[in-house]
C-alpha cells in the first residue's frame, strides 16, 4: 500500500494550517512526522482520518485518487488513526471493544462470545498485550488501552497505522515495548505514520522523516539518511535568534512570587522565586507534573504543605477564587474544557472576571465593560475584535488571547500569571503575538510569569530562566541565555533516555 499526498492544503478562515504538503507513506516503512505544536501535524492526521476536509490537494491510495475522506471511507481504505485521546468505550470489555459494530453472531441474532474471545485473544497476542478479552477497558493502564486500540485497528484490516505521539503518556518500559511492536508491524508490511516529539524514537524507528513548520514541509529525509544533529536543526531552524532579547530585570528586587517548600500529592518539595518582570519556564515532558505545580499554585488542586508569598504577603490557595484574591491567575492548558465558555460571546469570556470589579451595587456597567473589552482586544491583537462573536468561533490562537485578556486587562490586579502550555494548537503568527503580550505584561507591570512547556523553542523564545521538571521535582535551574535550543532539546531527550 502506498499513500501519496500531494499539495494538501487546509485553510481556517485567514490561517493556512496546511500549505501544499507532499508526503508519501509506503507499506513496511515507518514515516516519522515532526514539528512544533501548531506546525500542522494534527491537521494532516485529521485529513487522513477523515475528520478534517482539506481545502485543496489530493490523497491517493495505491495510485487511486480518493478525494476527501470521511471517517467511514478512511476506515474502509484501511487507514487507522490512534489518537492520544483513545476512542475506546471504557465500560465495555476488551473483546466488546474489539468487535464494536462488527460483532460476531450465532444465527445473526445471538452474540457469539466464545468465538469473539478466541479471535480477540489472537489479536491481543499479535500486539503483545497482556490484558485478556474479558477485562474491562476502564480498568486497564493507558499502555494496555493503546495496544487494544492498535489490535482493534489491525483486526479491521488497517494497512496504514497513524500513531499520534503514542509514547507521550507511557512509562519507559511501555514505550520500549511499543517501539518493538512498531518495528514488527512494519516488518509485517503495514505502513506507519509516526508523530512524535522525541528524537530518540525517530532515530530508532523511522525510515523516512518529514518535518513540518507553519503548515509547510521544511525538511525531508529517506531511508535512514539523517543524523540526530540534522533533525535538531531542522526542527529548530529559522526561529532561533529571531526572538527579541528578554527585557532586563532587576536581580536585587524583592521577589513577586516566592514558593517555599511546596509539597503535594506527587509533587515537591518545590522552591521558586520570581522577580518583578521575570518570566520563568517550567520545562519538562508530559508527566513531569509541571501542570500539577501550576494548578497547586492556583488553588485548583490541593497541596499538603509549604508557603506561597505574593509581594511578601502569604497567598491563600484554598480555591481558584482565593488564589485570584491573592492576585494569582492561571490560563489553563486545556482551553476548551477548562478555560473557554464556547457558546458565550467573546465579551462575556473576556470580562467574566472584570465585570465584578467594575460593577457597582451588584449591577454591571456595560459601557465600561465595552471599553475594557475594546482596549484589551487591541492590546492582545484579538482577531476579529468582535465582542458579540461566540468564543468557539475564534481560532485557537485568538481563543488563547481571550483567556489572557481575562486576566491581563486594565482593571485586573493580577501580579502572578501562570500559563500552562500557552501556545498549544496556536499557529506561528499568533504564537509570536502571544509571546509579545506575555513579555509586555511582565515588563510593564513588573509582574511574575511562570509558564509550563515541553518545547525548547518556547523556552528560548520567552523565558529568562528555566526550571527543568521531572517526576514532580525541579531537577535543574538555569539562565536561558546560557543554553541554546539544541542544548535544551538534548537535555530533555537525554533525560528521557535516562528515565
Amino acid at each position, binding site marked *: 500500500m502506498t499513500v501519496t499526498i500531494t499539495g494538501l492544503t487546509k485553510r481556517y*478562515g*485567514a*490561517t*493556512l494550517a496546511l500549505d501544499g504538503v507532499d508526503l508519501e507513506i509506503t507499506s513496511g516503512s515507518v514515516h516519522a512526522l515532526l514539528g512544533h505544536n501548531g506546525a500542522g501535524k494534527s491537521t494532516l492526521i485529521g485529513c487522513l482520518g477523515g475528520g478534517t476536509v482539506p481545502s485543496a490537494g489530493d490523497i491517493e491510495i495505491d495510485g487511486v485518487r480518493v478525494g476527501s475522506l470521511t471517517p467511514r471511507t478512511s476506515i474502509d481504505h484501511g487507514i487507522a488513526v490512534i489518537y492520544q485521546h483513545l476512542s475506546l468505550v471504557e465500560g465495555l470489555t476488551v473483546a466488546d471493544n474489539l468487535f464494536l459494530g462488527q460483532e460476531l453472531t450465532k444465527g445473526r441474532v445471538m452474540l457469539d462470545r466464545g468465538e469473539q474471545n478466541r479471535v480477540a485473544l489472537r489479536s491481543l497476542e499479535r500486539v503483545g498485550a497482556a490484558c485478556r478479552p474479558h477485562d474491562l477497558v476502564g480498568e486497564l493502564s493507558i499502555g494496555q488501552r493503546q495496544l487494544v486500540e492498535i489490535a482493534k485497528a489491525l483486526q479491521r484490516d488497517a494497512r496504514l497505522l497513524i500513531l499520534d505521539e503514542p509514547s507521550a503518556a507511557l512509562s519507559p518500559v511501555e514505550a520500549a515495548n511499543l517501539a518493538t511492536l512498531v518495528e514488527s508491524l512494519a516488518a509485517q508490511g503495514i505502513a506507519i505514520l509516526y508523530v512524535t516529539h522525541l528524537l530518540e524514537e525517530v532515530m530508532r524507528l523511522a525510515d523516512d522523516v518529514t518535518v513540518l513548520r*507553519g*503548515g509547510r514541509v521544511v525538511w525531508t529525509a529517506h531511508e535512514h539518511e539523517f543524523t540526530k544533529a540534522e533533525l535538531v536543526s531542522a526542527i529548530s531552524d529559522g526561529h532561533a535568534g529571531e526572538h527579541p532579547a528578554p527585557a532586563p530585570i532587576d536581580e536585587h528586587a524583592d521577589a513577586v512570587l516566592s514558593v517555599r517548600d511546596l509539597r503535594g500529592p506527587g509533587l515537591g518539595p518545590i522552591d521558586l522565586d520570581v522577580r518583578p518582570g521575570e518570566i520563568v519556564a517550567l520545562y519538562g515532558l508530559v508527566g513531569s507534573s509541571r501542570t500539577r505545580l501550576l494548578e497547586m499554585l*492556583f488553588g*485548583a488542586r490541593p497541596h499538603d504543605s509549604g508557603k506561597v508569598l505574593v509581594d511578601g504577603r502569604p497567598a491563600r490557595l484554598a*480555591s*481558584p*477564587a482565593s488564589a*485570584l*484574591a491573592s492576585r494569582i491567575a*492561571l490560563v*489553563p492548558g486545556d482551553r476548551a*474544557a*477548562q*478555560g*473557554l*465558555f*464556547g*457558546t*458565550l460571546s467573546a465579551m*462575556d469570556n473576556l470580562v*467574566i*472576571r472584570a*465585570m*465584578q470589579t467594575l*460593577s457597582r451595587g*451588584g*449591577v*454591571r456597567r*456595560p459601557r465600561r465593560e465595552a471599553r475594557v473589552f475594546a482596549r484589551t482586544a487591541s492590546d492582545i491583537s484579538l*482577531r*476579529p*475584535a*468582535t*465582542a*458579540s*462573536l*461566540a468564543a468557539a*468561533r*475564534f481560532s485557537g*490562537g485568538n481563543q488563547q488571547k481571550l483567556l489572557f485578556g*481575562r486576566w491581563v486587562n486594565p482593571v485586573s490586579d493580577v501580579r502572578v500569571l501562570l500559563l500552562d502550555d500557552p501556545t498549544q494548537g496556536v*499557529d*506561528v*503568527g*499568533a504564537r509570536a*503575538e502571544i509571546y509579545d503580550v506575555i513579555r509586555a505584561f511582565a515588563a510593564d507591570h513588573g509582574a511574575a510569569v511562570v509558564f509550563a512547556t515541553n518545547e525548547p523553542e518556547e523556552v528560548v523564545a520567552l523565558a529568562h530562566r528555566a526550571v527543568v521538571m521531572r517526576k514532580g521535582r525541579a531537577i535543574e535551574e538555569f539562565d536561558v541565555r546560557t543554553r541554546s535550543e539544541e542544548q535544551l532539546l538534548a537535555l530533555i531527550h537525554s533525560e528521557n533516555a535516562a528515565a
Partner: protein
Amino acid sequence: MEPTLRHRLTTAIVANPLFVLLLVMIVAVAAVTGGTLLNWVNLRGILLDGAIVAIVAIPGAMLIIAGYIDLSVGSTLALGGIVAGSIMAGGHGSPLIAVLAAIGVGIGVGLVNAIASPLFGLSAFITTLGTLTAVRGVAQLVNPLGANNFGASFGLLGVGTLLAVPIAVWIAGAGLIIGALFLVFTPAGRHVYAIGVNSRAAHLSGVNVKRMPFILYLVSGAAAGLAGAITVARLNSAPAGQLGLGFELTVLTAILLGGVALTGGEGSMFGVLVGVLFLGILNNSLIQLGVTSFWQNVASGVALVAAIAIGAVTHRLRLRLQAREAERIARATPVTST
C-alpha cells in the same frame, strides 16, 4: 468590527422562531373563531393560567441555564397550596400569613434540593425527582382531606385584579422583568450562563459555582409555594391529591418551548415569556376550536417535540450564520499571521 444589521435581524428571528409562530397562530385562530381568542375575558383566563406557570418557570429556566433542573415544583406547589389552604380553612386565618407560609414551605423544599444537588453534587434530576415524590406525600399527610372556603380576601389573590389585570399576572410580569434584568445586567446573572456552559472553566475563573444554583433552588421553591397559594385561592379549594399534578412538566414544556437549552448555557426570560404564552394560547385555541382535552394533550406534546426540532434546525442555522459572519469579518480584517 461589529456584525451587520442584517446579520443581527436574521439572528434574532432565527433565535426565537416560536415568536413568529405564536403571532401566526393568534391571527389564524382569531380569524377562524371570529375573535373569541382575543376577547378580554378569555385573554384574562389565558394570562392568569400563564402567570402561574411563568412564576415558577422564571427560576426554573435559570436553573436549567445553569445546568441544573427542578422537577419538584409540582409537589411544592401542592404543599404550598395545602398549607395556605389549611391556614385559611373556613375563612378564619390571615391571608398574609397563609401566603408567607406557602412561600416558607416552598423555600424549605428548595433548601433540601439546594443542599443535595449543588452543595453535595448529587444529580439534580434524581434529587428533584425524589423530592417530587416525597413532597407530594408530605402534602397529603399535612391535610389528607384538603380544605376549602377560604374567604373573599384570600380569594383576591386568585381572582382579584389591579387595573383589570389579574394580580398573579402583575407578579409574573414583575418577575420576568426582574429576571431579565438580573440575567443581563448583573455579574451573578452572567455567571448563571457561565456555569451552565462550562462549570470547570467558571470555577477556574474564580466564580463560586455553587452559590447561584443554591440560591436559585430556594427561589424556585418559594415561587412554587407562592404559585400554590395563588392556585388554591383561585379554586377556593385545596385538594391534596390532585393539586399541581403534572405541573412540573407543564413548566418544563413552557421553558423548553421558549428556547432554553436542556444542556444549559442558553436561554432568556423573553424566551420563557414566549414559551408560556405559546403553550397557553395553543391550549386555549384548541378549546376555542372545539377540540377535546385528550386531543389538547396530544397537541401540547406534539408542539413540544416540534419546537425542539425547530430549535435544533435553527441552532444549526445560527451556527452557520455565525460562521459566515466570522468569515466575513476575518476577510475584512488585515491579516499579519503566518
